[in-house]
């Protein structure tokens, strides 16, 4: 299976902002936030197309997300996930004595996951936190 090493960034998008006001259990929030934006050349190197699923793994966890071609390219080697439940599964809670975890610039690995599903909010909460 092809794998690609990337630097993972998380951040705001306007759709994520609108989605959170519509409700974090809304379909809009799920479809706009449970995604990973990648450079088209990175998609080519993984042999995948937009809207296929990828598994993103860091030292702290892994999650399956729908991949979309970034409108903010070029940023080859950089993957971008909007802030939210899905992104934070991948983050370390180490704050280095500042109170702030590192949510940007985290080393990660991306691989195609055509057989796996992107978890919805309630499924994710059940899977990771048992409630």
């Amino acid at each position: 299976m092809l794998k690609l090493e990337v630097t993972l960034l998380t951040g705001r998008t306007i759709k994520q902002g609108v989605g959170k006001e519509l409700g974090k259990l809304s379909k809009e929030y799920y479809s706009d936030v449970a995604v990973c934006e990648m450079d088209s050349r990175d998609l080519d190197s993984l042999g995948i197309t937009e809207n296929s699923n990828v598994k993103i793994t860091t030292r702290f966890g892994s999650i399956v997300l729908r991949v979309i071609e970034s409108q903010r390219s070029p940023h080859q080697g950089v993957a971008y996930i909007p802030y939210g439940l899905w992104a934070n599964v991948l983050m370390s809670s180490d704050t280095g004595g500042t109170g702030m975890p590192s949510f940007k610039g985290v080393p990660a690995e991306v691989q195609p996951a055509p057989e796996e599903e992107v978890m919805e909010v309630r499924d994710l909460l059940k899977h990771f936190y048992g409630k």
Partner: protein
Amino acid sequence: MKHLTTIGPVTCPVCGCLCDDLELIIEDNTVIQVKNACAVGEAKFLDCQQNRPRTPLIRKNGELVEASWDEAIQRSAEMLLSARYPLLYGWSSTSCEAVRKGIELAEEVGGVIDNTSTVCHGPSILSIQDVGISSCTLGQIRHRADLVVYWGCDPWSAHPRHIERYTAFTDGRYRESSWRRYAKRYYARQLLKRVQRVSNITSKTVPSTETTTDHLPSFPKVRDRLMVVVDVRRTRTADAADYFLQVKPNSDYELLQALRMLIRQEVLDVDEVSGIPVEQLEELADAMIECELGIIFFGVGLTMSSGKNRNVDAAISLVRDLNKWTKFLIMPMRGHFNVTGANVVSTWQTGYPFAVDFSKGYPVYNPGETSAVDILSRGESDASLVIASDPVSNFPREAVKNLVGNPLIVIDPLETPTSLMADVVLPSTFVGIETEGTAYRMDHVPLPLKKVLEPPDGVVSDEDVLHRILDHVRGLRKEAP
């Protein structure tokens, strides 16, 4: 016959811009049209009454079930009183009046009170406490700034009206909007994309769609202004800018220090710094020195990446260096509408802006030790109250595990992933829509928020919910001293 009411001006309770020029058209206690707001503000006013709990919920046999207010308040007070080290977290999307009540409660139960700046601009606050800050109000920038630098932030997405109201796309008293220049660039870019699409079909030669300006344009007119973006991605804000510098992730610190060297007339003996050619840095340094009034707006691109508060130290120090040449200012782009107010009220009441620990009977502040993520990651807290925030979505997994593994009270108008995991859910009104209050804009200007809709029957404000819990806690204390 429809009875429509128009209310305005209304202040928007979404982000730190606190845009105070909104106009709402209301019919039957429902907002049907929002004028002047961004997409996020519009969504909040139009959809605030959807998908929300209207009665308290208590977890029984693993399920959240409806409960009376008396039972839910009683249960919350008992949970907080029986905890050895409770954490009271959130506070940035509620009013200053509610924050004040929350601090009283934290002191009463001997807990830790921390607000969302801990995972936002907490490192900026640490840095400002270390090195100070030269800042201003947004009105000054609107009227006077001729160089605006957005560093590690994307206001187009996170503060959608910031550019239009306060910086490059607004007409100030002494500076004109530069939106016409942006419009020309936008149409040129669209044209180039069309040419590329045609060329993709007809030939193998593909013209570049890269529109990064190779050189920083000189100040075009006396009254004009320039906008520069430094970021790890070409954001929408970068598309709107006159000049964009794409820095490598986790290397803002080096870039800021290199700029400081150039400002101090020292020589950089390298070809590039953090992925940016030194010639481009020299152009930016020249523009910074030549401007009449410049400002750096910085975002969590600096506070959440490697270096954190040290990145902000470097940015503030750069501004300090620049003030030997010209007038330069710096301001953090605060996210939630009252995160600044949460810091301000906490500082009035306790002496510290966030991460305040009352477990010793007096306020102790030591981020890294008394901050929410650290307390949760170490498994130190044994109960939590979360208000106007959603840490289950926003904290790393290890911290969330401990948050949801202990008794959890949630006060929020909306159903969120955190409220789904709670043991007690106390629904509240939307501040700035159903409840009046005070909020602080990102430049520390306090603004009143209006009540424009009646809340659902029985739903009260965050401040009232906290007041009832506090009364109950005090009552229980008297009964069992």
